[in-house]
C-alpha cells in the first residue's frame, strides 16, 4: 500500500487527481485510507451514518484498471466521497436520520450517485443528518438518529444542521468532498459552523431523484469541499437535466472559471450592519477583515438593502404545507412520535392544520419576492453576508430561539437572506473567512439563478488571498 501522509486527507480534488493519474497513489489505497479514517473517526463527531468500505474498495479497484488502461474520466475519478443519509444508495439503508426509517432500503440509487459513479468517484460512506432534515422545527442538536452532530473544531459545539455529517466529515478530513441538501439553511449553516466551503446550487440545477423530499419547491442538493474550485468540479458532474425530477431546470453546468467576468466589473451588494451590530461581537473582526479582502479582489462593494418581505413566515408556511403532504401518513399513523425531538414531533403534527389559503398566499408572496430580487440584481451582481452571524452554537443550546439580539434601532441588514435566497431559488457559496473564539466563521455570496460560475470565481480569488479554507481542526 502506498504511504499516505496526513496532508492527503486535506488535499484538494485536483491535488488528489494528480496523484491518482500519475499512479503515485492507487485509487484502491486512497479508498482504503479514507474509508478507514471515516470509520474510525466518524463516530467521534457523530457524523457517520453508514460506512461502505467494501463497496468503495471494489469500485476503486475498477478505477485503477481504468487508469492503467489510460481511460481517464475527469478530475473526480478515484476520489472518495460521502453523501448525506437522505440520498438513496441501492440496497443499503437510507435512514433520513430518523429512527422510524432506520430499516429503510431503496432498490435504486439517487441520480447524483449514478452521475458520480459514472465518472469514477468512490462512495465511502453515508453521513449523519438531523432527522427528516428538521422540517418540523427541532429544538436541540440531539434531533438525530446518530446523536448531536459534534463540531470537529470543538466537540462541545454543534456541527450545524441539517447536513451535519456532510460538513463535519469534510472539516475533519474524512472525505475530500460530500453532498448535502438545503431547504432553508441546511448547507449554509453547517458549512459556516465547520469552516468548509460549500455550494447551494440554483433550484432545479441538480436532480433530487432518490433524495428525501421535504419541500418540492425548495429542496436542493449541493457539495461540501475544501475549496471553491472543488465545489465547481463536483457541481459540473452532479448538475444537469433529469426527466425524473419534476423540478429539474433542464440546464447543465460547466465549471469555466477562465470565462468568468473580471472581478472589477462586479458589483457586490452588502449591508454594513451585518458585519457590525448584527454580527456577534467575537466574529466582527473576522467579518470586517473578510470584507476588506473581498474589496481587494477588485469587486465594487455597494451598500444595498434586501426587499422588505416576511421571508421567515413565507418560507415556513410553504415548508409546513409541503412536508405535511409528504409525511401525512407518517404523522397520522403515529410513527412521528418515534422521532427524537419533541419540538419536531409537534411541528410536524401542527403542519397538517395549516390552511390552504396560507400556503397559496405564501406562494403568491414568493412570486413577488422573486420579482423583487430580479430588480435588485439589476443593480448588483451578487450579495455578500455572513454565513451565520457568529460561530457554532453550544451543543445544549436551544435552537428554537435566536442568538443575541442586535442593539435597539439597528438596521435590518440582510436578516432573512437564507430564507429569501431559498424562496427565490438563488445559488449561494459559503467561504470560510476567519475565526471567532477559535471557531470558524464564514461568508455567503449569493447570486442570480445559474450564476454559479460568478460565485465560484469570487470564491477562487478570495481563497487565493486567504488560507482560512486550509486550516485544520485541532488534532486532525
Amino acid at each position: 500500500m502506498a504511504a499516505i501522509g496526513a496532508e492527503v486527507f486535506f488535499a484538494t480534488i485536483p491535488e488528489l487527481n494528480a496523484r491518482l493519474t500519475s499512479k503515485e497513489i492507487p485509487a484502491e489505497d486512497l479508498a482504503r485510507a479514507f474509508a478507514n479514517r471515516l470509520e474510525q473517526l466518524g463516530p467521534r463527531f457523530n457524523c457517520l451514518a453508514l460506512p461502505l468500505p467494501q463497496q468503495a474498495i471494489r469500485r476503486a479497484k475498477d478505477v485503477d484498471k481504468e487508469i492503467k488502461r489510460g481511460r481517464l474520466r475527469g478530475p473526480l475519478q478515484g476520489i472518495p466521497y460521502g453523501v448525506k443519509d437522505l440520498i438513496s444508495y441501492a440496497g443499503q439503508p437510507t435512514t433520513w436520520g430518523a429512527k422510524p426509517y432506520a430499516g429503510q432500503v431503496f432498490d435504486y440509487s439517487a441520480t447524483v450517485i449514478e452521475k458520480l459513479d459514472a465518472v469514477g468517484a468512490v462512495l465511502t460512506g453515508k453521513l449523519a443528518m438531523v432527522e427528516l432534515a428538521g422540517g418540523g422545527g427541532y429544538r436541540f442538536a440531539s434531533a438525530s438518529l446518530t446523536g448531536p452532530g459534534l463540531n470537529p473544531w470543538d466537540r462541545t459545539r454543534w456541527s450545524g444542521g441539517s447536513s451535519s455529517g456532510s460538513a463535519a466529515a469534510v472539516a475533519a478530513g474524512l472525505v475530500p468532498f460530500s453532498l448535502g441538501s438545503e431547504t432553508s439553511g441546511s448547507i449554509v449553516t453547517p458549512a459556516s459552523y465547520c469552516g468548509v466551503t460549500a455550494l447551494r446550487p440554483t433550484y432545479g440545477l441538480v436532480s433530487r431523484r432518490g433524495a428525501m423530499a421535504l419541500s418540492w419547491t425548495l429542496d436542493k442538493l449541493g457539495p461540501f469541499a475544501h475549496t471553491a474550485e472543488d465545489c465547481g468540479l463536483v457541481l459540473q458532474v452532479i448538475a444537469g437535466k433529469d426527466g425524473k425530477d419534476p423540478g429539474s431546470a433542464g440546464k447543465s453546468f460547466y465549471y469555466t472559471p477562465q470565462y468568468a467576468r473580471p472581478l472589477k466589473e462586479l458589483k457586490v451588494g452588502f449591508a454594513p450592519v451585518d458585519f457590525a451590530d448584527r454580527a456577534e461581537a467575537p466574529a466582527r473582526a473576522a467579518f470586517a477583515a473578510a470584507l476588506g479582502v473581498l474589496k481587494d479582489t477588485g469587486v465594487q462593494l455597494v451598500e444595498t438593502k434586501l426587499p422588505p418581505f416576511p421571508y421567515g413566515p413565507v418560507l415556513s408556511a410553504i415548508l409546513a404545507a409541503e412536508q405535511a403532504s409528504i409525511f401525512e401518513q407518517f404523522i397520522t399513523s403515529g410513527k412521528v412520535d418515534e422521532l427524537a425531538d419533541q419540538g419536531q414531533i409537534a411541528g410536524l403534527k401542527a403542519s397538517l392544520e395549516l390552511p390552504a389559503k396560507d400556503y397559496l398566499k405564501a406562494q403568491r408572496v414568493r412570486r413577488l419576492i422573486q420579482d423583487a430580487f430580479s430588480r435588485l440584481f439589476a443593480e448588483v451582481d451578487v450579495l455578500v453576508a455572513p454565513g451565520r452571524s457568529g460561530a457554532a452554537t453550544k451543543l445544549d443550546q436551544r435552537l428554537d430561539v435566536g442568538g443575541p439580539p442586535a442593539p435597539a434601532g439597528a438596521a435590518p441588514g440582510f436578516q432573512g437572506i437564507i430564507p429569501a435566497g431559498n424562496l427565490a431559488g438563488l445559488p449561494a457559496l459559503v467561504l470560510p473567512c476567519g475565526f471567532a473564539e477559535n471557531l470558524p466563521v464564514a461568508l455567503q455570496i449569493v447570486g442570480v439563478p445559474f450564476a454559479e460560475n460568478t460565485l465560484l470565481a469570487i470564491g477562487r480569488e478570495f481563497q487565493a488571498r486567504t488560507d482560512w479554507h486550509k486550516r485544520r481542526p485541532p488534532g486532525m
Partner: protein
Amino acid sequence: MKLTRRKLATAVLIPAATALAQTAQTPPALPRNPDEEMKAARDRVKAMGDALAQQAVPMATEPAFQFKA
C-alpha cells in the same frame, strides 16, 4: 453608493465599536407536556398565517409553483 476602503472601515467598524452591549435573550420556557407542546406548535402556525395576512398581494399574482400541461 460605491465604497472606498476608508468608507468601508467607517461603515463596518465604527458602529460595532460604539454598539450597545448585547444582552442575553431569555428563551421562552420549555413546554411541560405534549399538550403545551402542541399548543406552541399551533401558535406558530397561526403566527405564520397572521404574518402572511399582513402582506398585500395584487389579485393577479399567481402562486410561484409550476404546472406544465
